[in-house]
């Protein structure tokens, strides 16, 4: 029997589709020899790309519904499925690239704002890839972390200008300076703010457990903290955002730190919108809003219209938590980020989190995500240098977020001046996210950005927590290797040590902003 190419079978299902249906992104290739019509793909695909065709008595699919998440491919018991980019292409045009055409078709149909999920995929420079690390050769020995101590311990919080010690011959001298509260991290990697609601409870539980086991911290995001997770408070940073969801006295006192979210790298200048469909009973009780109601975070905090208002909120939160925990302020990396950061530190923030434009999001208008803000590398370098120039770098720890992809990125961020980093996208990747970018639909086939019980049970908190622990442990080992290679045995000697970095293929201006020399010099 002659073998027909798959594409012919596909044609049978496509009849007079409008143009926006035709130019879909992916095609599903089903190997007919392998497919046993078991319908696993039908059950797994939350976008209904696979379906049971009663007339033909076999599994069929609609390519236009495929979002490229690879869930079916991963779970197909006979490996019959392959998801590919569609080979059909728009007429080449360097200016009108396919994404613009597709978006226009979409908007002409709906009249709506283009929504996007996860971090920006646009081709802005990734400076991590343009920075190279140093290693010791001959003149100083590299240090083997398997044989020697290699310290990653980091404290986040404000540090004193100097220590006052009373040394009247006694040993040890007595410390006269009172040290402000700190967040103690055994590794400078934290799980980024992803709210309960945007991601489901299983993952919040997994992050809480993993952060506890790793002796680092995770951030609740703006959706409050379910009471059953209060017991992980020593490793929890509770967030207060413009919607003030789930903010109450116990919440503010549940964690090891409080973060005021002013902005997010993926969508600077705008708020958030968690659709009512995602608000189930647990999310409702945690956020303190009715089941099924939309959770809308305003663009600004309505009690912060200027820097002096921020100061008041910082101290209101410090009062509410009786000065037991440091207060962090998270801002998006925008053009004047250095000056803003300086103001934030002067307003009393103990930690400043800078979130770069490649940072992830559950939902953001695509125009904002892909066009607003600046990359974290430049923002971080500018903030660190400005705070040092003003002699206030020690008054706040700097946390970098938004686009950290691997241990080397962490090392480069710390060398540029960060005390620690947040990982968000990497956290989700670790539990199976494939960056399909449809988090805002609530249909996440991997059970991550969804509260649909049928989908969210795909995440087992035990397994997820193990994966998160593995990831951070692996990165920490790699950081230790790189540190040792540079002849350092403690992370504080890397922090802000830009001499360990060289730029490759960067302009003088870029090098100047990053404060690094070009490779070869």
């Amino acid at each position, binding site marked *: 029997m002659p073998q027909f190419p798959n594409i012919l079978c596909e044609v049978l299902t496509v009849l007079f589709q409008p143009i926006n249906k035709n130019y879909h992104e992916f095609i599903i290739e089903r190997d007919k020899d392998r497919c046993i019509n078991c319908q696993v793909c039908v059950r797994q695909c939350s976008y209904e790309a696979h379906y049971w065709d009663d007339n033909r008595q076999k599994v069929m699919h609609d390519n236009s519904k495929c979002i490229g998440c690879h869930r079916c491919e991963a779970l197909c018991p006979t490996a019959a499925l392959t998801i590919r980019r569609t080979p059909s292409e728009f007429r080449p045009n360097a200016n009108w690239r396919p994404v613009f055409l597709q978006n226009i078709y979409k908007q002409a149909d709906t009249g709506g704002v283009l929504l996007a999920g996860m971090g920006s995929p646009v081709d802005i420079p990734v400076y991590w890839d343009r920075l190279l690390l140093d290693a010791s050769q001959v003149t100083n*020995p590299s240090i083997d972390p398997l044989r020697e*101590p290699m310290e990653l311990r980091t404290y986040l919080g404000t*540090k004193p200008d100097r*220590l006052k010690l009373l040394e009247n011959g006694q040993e040890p*001298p007595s*410390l006269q*300076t009172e040290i402000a509260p700190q967040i103690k991290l055994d590794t400078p990697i934290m799980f980024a703010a992803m709210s309960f609601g945007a991601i489901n409870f299983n993952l919040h539980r997994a992050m809480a457990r993993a952060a506890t086991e790793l002796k680092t911290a995770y951030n609740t995001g703006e959706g409050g903290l379910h009471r059953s997770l209060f017991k992980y408070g020593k490793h929890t940073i509770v967030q207060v955002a413009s919607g003030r969801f789930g903010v109450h006295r116990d919440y503010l006192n549940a964690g090891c730190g409080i973060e005021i979210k002013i902005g997010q790298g993926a969508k600077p200048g705008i708020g958030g919108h968690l659709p009512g469909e995602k608000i189930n009973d647990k999310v409702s009780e945690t956020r303190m809003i009715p089941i099924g109601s939309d959770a809308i975070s305003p663009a600004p905090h309505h009690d912060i219209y200027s820097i002096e208002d921020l100061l008041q909120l910082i101290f209101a939160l410090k009062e509410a938590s009786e000065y037991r925990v440091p207060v962090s302020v998270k801002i998006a990396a925008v053009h004047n980020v250095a000056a803003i950061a300086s103001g934030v530190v002067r307003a009393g923030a103990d930690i400043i989190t800078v979130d770069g434009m490649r940072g992830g999001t559950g939902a953001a208008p695509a125009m904002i995500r892909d066009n607003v803000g600046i990359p974290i590398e430049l923002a971080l370098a500018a903030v660190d240098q400005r705070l*040092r*120039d003003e002699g206030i770098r020690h008054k706040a720890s700097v946390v970098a977020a938004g686009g950290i992809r691997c241990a080397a990125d962490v090392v480069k961020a710390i060398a540029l001046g960060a005390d620690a980093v947040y990982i968000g996208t990497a956290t989700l990747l670790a539990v199976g996210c494939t960056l399909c970018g449809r988090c805002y639909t609530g249909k996440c086939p991997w059970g991550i950005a969804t509260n649909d019980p049928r989908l969210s049970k795909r995440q087992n908190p035990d397994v997820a927590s193990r994966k998160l622990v593995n990831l951070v442990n692996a990165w920490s080992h790699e950081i230790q290797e790189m540190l040792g290679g540079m002849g350092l045995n403690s992370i504080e*000697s890397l922090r802000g040590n830009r001499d360990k970095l060289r730029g490759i293929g960067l302009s003088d201006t870029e090098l100047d902003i990053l404060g690094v020399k070009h490779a070869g010099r």
Partner: protein
Amino acid sequence: MKAPERYYDFQKDISGCGVFGVIDTKRGLIPGQVPIDGMACMHDRGNGLGGGFAAYGIYPEHADKYALHLMCDHQQALTSARELILKYFEVEHDEPIPTRQTPVISNPPLVWRYFATPRADCPADCQGLPEEDFVVALVMKINTTVPGAFVFSSGKNMGAFKGVGYPEDIADFFRVDEYFAYLWTAHNRFPTNTPGWWGGAHPFTLLDWSIVHNGEISSYGINRRWLCENDYLCTMMTDTEVVAYELDLLVRKHGLSRRMASKVFAPPFWDEIERMPDKERNLYTALRMTYGSGMLNGPFAILVGNKDGLWGLNDRIKLRPLLVAEQGDKVFMSSEESAVRTVCPQLDRVWMPKAGEPVIVDLEA
């Protein structure tokens, strides 16, 4: 202070070295031949691109005056520096530093010394400065604004003698064998990337502090940025400069003891700190949090001399050699035992200090 334009664009000096120090705690005078022989024994630790000595107690007749040792590339520099010094200082006495012609030292700078105290009627930019800050400011001024002139020592009743050459040749040139001091530090240098410059040889000095150092501070990049935040501008691109400024900041300005400053340079590991009693744990946790950017990370053995005594310190995993030996009232510190045995074959006690554990030998009052 705000970091100058392109502060990140520097070429750091990298070198290996030999160090030697000796102190007589009862201020008995030790002839210059002792450190010279010690250094000569460790000839192979240098490559002829730098050697030097610092001697304490050599100017008893001018003991209360700052002894400014000046080196100049040409007569013009000497004249300009002189004008500046006379404007700011009451000079009690000045003279050329005695030297002898030696075949191996070629093209040496002009060397001169002043015994002086700050003028009350000095120009406005130094008016009202505490005396020591005044001296530091003027040294910086000469070194950065007078082309070809460099003040290489500025303490009271002490002086540095250093230059490009092996230490025994530099000693020959400066007639170090003719001095007697109760405390000596000495250095032999093996730079890998800089042509020799007389001012860049060690000991590095600031007021009465003299520092000799064998090592490479891998944390240099952050140390110098932290110093810049604290108004110290690193211009020499050497690790030793960083050590000197940090000492000045920690000991003179922040009032830490030399022992606690050692713990900033080479702090205990976190797992040691975890095991300490509460009071100590809190102290060392605070110390590391506050002064983390000042930690000297990388291999080093440092000897520091000042008016109080001699202080030796190793990095916290002891990646460079440092040995201490006692004989009577004398204490030796050296990269190699052979150097000590050369000048003093019979020793009462010889030991290798533990990594990160400072050895502080004070002069008796």
